[in-house]
C-alpha cells in the first residue's frame, strides 16, 4: 500500500466531473498486489441478488462493476400485454418494501393520461398510507443497514415498530407488503372503522421509538467510525449521476418532488426537507431519520384534516386513455420514481417505462466506493438503499 494507493485516493477526490465514469482500465493485466473478487450474487449483505465485481489492491477498492438483472421479470413487457388496471398489482412487486408509493405513482400517471383527478379524500388517504410506507421503508433500511455494519439490535427495534404499520395496511386492504392499495381514479377501499384513531395512536407510539433508534446509533462510536466520511459524493457528482432521494439530499441539495412539483395533496401540508452537508453515509442516515419525523408531521396533519366525500373519481369501467404520452414521477422513499406511459388509445398501454430510483442510484456505487475498504462497500450498498426487485424489474 505505498505510493500507488495514495495516487488512487487522490485521484478519486480530485477527479474532474467531465471524465467521471469514463476511465478505461489503464492496463489489461493486474499488478502483483491487485486482485479481482466477486461479491454476491448470494451474499447476505447485498440486499437481494446483486453481484459486485471488485478490483482490489490489498483491501482497497480500485474499481467496481455491478452485475444486475438476476431478478429481471420483464415488468415493462408485461405492462404492454395487460390492461391498465391489470398491470396495477405488478407495480407493487418492484420496490416491494414501498409498494404503496409505487402504486401511487402509477395510478397518478394513468389518471393524468385520462385527465381525471382523484377526489380530495382519496388524496388524503393516499398521503397517509404513502407516508406510513415511507416510514416502514426507512425502518427496514435502518435495520438491515445497521445489521450489515454490525449492529444487530436496531433490526429488532425497527421490525417491531414496522409491524404496527403493516398491521394498519393489513386492516386497510388485506395485504401487508404488496398492498395494491390504490386504484386508478382513487382508492378502492374506504378507511375501516377506527382508522384515524389507530393512525394517531401509531404516531404517538413511534415518535419516541425513532428517538430510541437514534439513541442506539447517532453518537455510537462504532457507528460513527463506520459511517462518517464513508462513501462521500458531492452534490455536483450526485446530480450528474442522476442520484435522487435521501442520497441526493444528504449531499446538500434541498430537492424533494413533494415540494418541487407537488402531487397528491402534498401542497396542503407543512413539512421540511432535511438535508445533509457532507454527502457521506452518516449524513444519509441522519437525513432518513429526519425524514421519518417529517413523515409523522405530514400524517398528523392529514389524519386531522381528512375531508369527507367520495374516494373514487368517475372513471370509465374500461380504461382507455386517449392517444398520447405522459411522464409522471413521485418522491418514493428511495428517490424519484417515474412512469412514462404511452397510450395508443386502446385498453392496454403501448409502452410503460418505469424510472426506478434504485437502479439509477446504484450506478453511483462505483463513484462512492473507490479508494475505500471492502467492508465499506457493504456500508455503501446499504446506505444507497436499493431494492433489487426495483433495480432489475
Amino acid at each position, binding site marked *: 500500500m505505498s505510493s500507488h494507493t495514495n495516487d488512487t485516493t487522490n485521484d478519486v477526490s480530485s477527479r474532474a466531473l467531465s471524465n467521471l*465514469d469514463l476511465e478505461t482500465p489503464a492496463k489489461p493485466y493486474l499488478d502483483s498486489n491487485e486482485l479481482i473478487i466477486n461479491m454476491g450474487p448470494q451474499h447476505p449483505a447485498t440486499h437481494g441478488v446483486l453481484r459486485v465485481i471488485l478490483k482490489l489492491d490489498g483491501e482497497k477498492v480500485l474499481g467496481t462493476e455491478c452485475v444486475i438483472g438476476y431478478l429481471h421479470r420483464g415488468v415493462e413487457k408485461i405492462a404492454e400485454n395487460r390492461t391498465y388496471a391489470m398491470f396495477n398489482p405488478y407495480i407493487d412487486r418492484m420496490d416491494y418494501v414501498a409498494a404503496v408509493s409505487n402504486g401511487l405513482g402509477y395510478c397518478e400517471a394513468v389518471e393524468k393520461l385520462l385527465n381525471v383527478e382523484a377526489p380530495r379524500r382519496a388524496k388524503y388517504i393516499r398521503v397517509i398510507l404513502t407516508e406510513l410506507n415511507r416510514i416502514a421503508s426507512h425502518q427496514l433500511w435502518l435495520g438491515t443497514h445497521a445489521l450489515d455494519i454490525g449492529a444487530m439490535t436496531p433490526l429488532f427495534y425497527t421490525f417491531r415498530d414496522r409491524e404496527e404499520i403493516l398491521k394498519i395496511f393489513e386492516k386497510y386492504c388485506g395485504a401487508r407488503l404488496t398492498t395494491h392499495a390504490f386504484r386508478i381514479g382513487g382508492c378502492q377501499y374506504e378507511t375501516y372503522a377506527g382508522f384515524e384513531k389507530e393512525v394517531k395512536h401509531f404516531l404517538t407510539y413511534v415518535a419516541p421509538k425513532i428517538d430510541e433508534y437514534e439513541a442506539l446509533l447517532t453518537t455510537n462510536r462504532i457507528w460513527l467510525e463506520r459511517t462518517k466520511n464513508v462513501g462521500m459524493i458531492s452534490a455536483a457528482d450526485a446530480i450528474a*449521476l*442522476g442520484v435522487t432521494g435521501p442520497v441526493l439530499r444528504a449531499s446538500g441539495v434541498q430537492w424533494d418532488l413533494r415540494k418541487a412539483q407537488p402531487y397528491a395533496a402534498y401542497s396542503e401540508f407543512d413539512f421540511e426537507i432535511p438535508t445533509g452537508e457532507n454527502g457521506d453515509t452518516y449524513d444519509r442516515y441522519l437525513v432518513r431519520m429526519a425524514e421519518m419525523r417529517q413523515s409523522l408531521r405530514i400524517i398528523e396533519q392529514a389524519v386531522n384534516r381528512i375531508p369527507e366525500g367520495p374516494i373514487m373519481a*368517475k372513471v*370509465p369501467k374500461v380504461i382507455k386513455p386517449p392517444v*398520447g404520452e405522459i411522464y409522471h*414521477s413521485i418522491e418514493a422513499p428511495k428517490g424519484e420514481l417515474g412512469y*412514462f406511459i404511452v397510450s395508443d*388509445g386502446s385498453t392496454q398501454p403501448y409502452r410503460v417505462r418505469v*424510472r426506478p430510483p434504485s437502479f439509477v442510484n446504484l450506478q453511483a456505487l462505483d463513484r462512492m466506493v473507490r479508494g475505500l475498504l471492502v467492508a465499506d462497500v457493504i456500508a455503501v450498498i446499504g446506505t444507497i438503499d436499493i431494492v433489487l426487485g426495483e433495480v432489475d424489474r
Partner: protein
Amino acid sequence: MAEDVKTPAPAPPPEGEKPTAEKTAAAAPAAPVKPAAAAKPEGPVPVPWSSPLVEKYRSQYGSGLDAQTYLGQNYFSVDRSLIPDILRLLRDDEQFDYCVDITAVHYPKREKQFDVIWILYSFSRNERVRVKTQIADGASIPSSVLIWPTANWLEREVYDMFGITFDGHPDLKRILLPDGWKGHPLRKDYGILQQDQEWVQINLGIESGQ
C-alpha cells in the same frame, strides 16, 4: 373538484357508441373502426409550445425542431442529426443538469421504427422537458454519457431492451439480460412468451424457462 372529474367524461362514449342519437355526428360511428381518429376530439391534443427557449432554438435549427405541449408537459421533437448538440445546449445553456431518464418506444409499422426519448429536469428552473427523436432500425445514435454520466446505465438498458446502439458509449453491453441472450424483449415483435430457449437450455440445463 366535481368540475375536474367531468373533464374525462367524454372518454366513455367509445364503449357506449351504440346510441342512435349519436348517429348524426359523422365522427362518432367511425370511432369503433378507427380509435385514433375518434380519440382526437375527445382527449386533449398536443398544442404548440411557445417560450423564449423554443423561439431561440427554432431560429437556430428551423424545421429540424418542433416543440409541443401535451397535458402540460413540454417536449421537443428533433431531427436525429441535432441530437448531441441540442442535448448539450440544454444542459450547458439552459441548466437542464439532471437527466431523469432515457428510454425508447418501438413502432414497427413506421419507417423510422424507434422513438428515443430523453427526460430532462432543471433544478434551477424546476422544469421538465422531453426530447424525442426518431431513428430507423439498425441506426445508431450518439451517446450522451459525456453530457450526463447517468446516461451510462440508462443507455445500456435501452440497448439491452431495444437493440439501439449508442455511438461513443464507453461500455455498451447488456445490463439486465445475460450477455449471450438473443433478441431485445421490448421490441414489439418479441412475443411475451418468447425467450432464448438455447440460452436457457445451455445455462440452466432445462428445456424451457416458462
